[in-house]
């Protein structure tokens, strides 16, 4: 009997496979051949077939649909909550060093200069805010691309959807919104922004709000300077970056002792809410404080902001470049 036993043992894996419908055609033939002359193995195969039928029954059984629906509803709620908290972020390289860009469903949440490219974990701004940082699947790539174009001088506008959720207060949010409207090539002062907001005494608060701007470059806080034209501060201690961004827009900057400042005399000027721009020597302009002025790096920048040349000083006929050599 021993050859038979060996044979049964050898056919066993094929027999199980055949019974549960997972055998190759060749194995099926082998099994058929074997069970034709082996009654016990035929029985064995039938048993496996019955088990497989019962198991197939499990597949068809309904699975408590009511409870599943409740669970799905709960899950959808949690997912919506997670979506609200979630941002996707990636650290990109740039001529200004590693830059982290984060976005939510609403828009760009954060642009942060990083000391190293260690990833979203390196962000101070995203820590401890109940924000969940998700792996970026390419959502921030377009913004990175536009920043590169901007820094190369090939782009003057970053028309991004913005999400101000990282603003620490309604006041900061308002400062950021007002600052976001400053056009390319324009320079204004903290004091002027404070006045624009109807809070003329909140100059320091405006400066603080911009110091912690979560969206530098796109909310161009680099275009805001101190009352004397001094660059004052930028993203903590990154004054060099502020100067670089202003220079990119053609804003003239001079250095006295330790501080850089914008050269007001070398820029076109708009007083208060005038619709015309002037050369800085026009009328009483030289005597006006910076909180009443907006400065422009060029006629082109002033005109693309919708301003017309002053009909008295005629900056169109006597442009600054011919009067002043820096």
């Amino acid at each position, binding site marked *: 009997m021993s050859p038979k036993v060996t044979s049964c043992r050898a056919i066993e894996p094929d027999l199980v496979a055949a019974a549960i419908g997972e055998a190759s055609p060749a194995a099926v033939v082998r099994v058929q051949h074997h069970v034709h002359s082996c009654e016990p193995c035929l029985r064995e195969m039938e048993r496996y077939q019955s088990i497989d039928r019962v*198991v197939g029954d499990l597949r068809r059984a309904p699975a408590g649909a009511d409870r599943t629906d409740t669970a799905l509803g709960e899950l959808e709620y949690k*997912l919506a909550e997670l979506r609200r908290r979630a941002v996707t972020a990636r650290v990109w390289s740039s001529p200004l060093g590693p830059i982290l860009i984060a976005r939510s469903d609403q828009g760009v949440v954060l642009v942060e200069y990083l000391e190293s490219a260690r990833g979203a974990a390196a962000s101070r701004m995203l820590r401890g805010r109940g924000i969940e940082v998700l792996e970026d699947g390419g959502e921030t790539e377009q913004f990175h691309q536009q920043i590169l174009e901007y820094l190369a001088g090939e782009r003057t506008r970053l028309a991004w959807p913005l999400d101000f959720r990282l603003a620490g207060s309604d006041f900061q949010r308002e400062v950021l919104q007002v600052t976001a409207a400053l056009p390319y090539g324009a320079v204004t002062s903290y004091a002027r922004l404070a006045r624009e907001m109807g809070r003329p005494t909140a100059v320091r608060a405006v400066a603080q709000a911009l110091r912690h701007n979560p969206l530098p470059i796109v909310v161009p806080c680099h275009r805001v300077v101190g009352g004397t034209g001094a660059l004052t501060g930028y993203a903590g201690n990154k004054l060099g970056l502020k100067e670089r961004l202003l220079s990119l827009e053609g804003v003239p900057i001079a250095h006295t002792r330790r501080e850089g400042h914008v050269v007001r005399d070398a820029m076109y000027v708009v007083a208060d809410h005038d619709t015309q721009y002037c050369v800085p020597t026009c009328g009483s302009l030289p005597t006006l404080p910076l909180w009443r002025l907006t400065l422009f790096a060029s006629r082109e920048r002033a005109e693309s902001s919708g301003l017309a040349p002053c009909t008295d000083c005629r900056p169109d006929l006597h442009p600054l470049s011919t009067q002043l050599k820096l």
Partner: protein
Amino acid sequence: MGLEPFEAVMSAHHAEIVRYLRRVTFRSADAEDLSQETFLRAFRAYRALPGDANVRAWLFAIATNLFRNNLRSAKRRRAAHDVVKSRGREHDGEGPEGAALFNEARAAVEQVIDGLPAKQRAAFVLRKVHELPYEDIAKSLDCSADSARAHVFQAFRKIRKTLGDQLPSAEVSA
């Protein structure tokens, strides 16, 4: 990226993931927690998934990992044994279909499935209930397709051995 919105993925696969987890875990409360965790995890990683990824297999793999980790921590708490022992088929009588539709043979088979080692149980359920290819089961269980298949066959042998002569008759059907 060729990925559909995550909500669509969720509504397409939620029921089967819950069903899978109910089958392999010992309590339906665990299954519901784990399926929730499966989809929240999946959501976090979804956007980084390649556009041509097999989302269904990927979800089963996440669920399997969670289930096995859960089992490990349950074991650490020395609670698993008691839970196994106290397990009736808690979820079988829950649906409107009631207990009557579940005949004895099926109950017997289910009992054996419940007693299988976790890896075998997962392989068996993924293959026989959810009909996943062995390659996908292998990814879920972090083993080769051959050993995934071996797990399933071994499970069948155990059912066969445990049931002995009490095997369901050939007429058993849905």
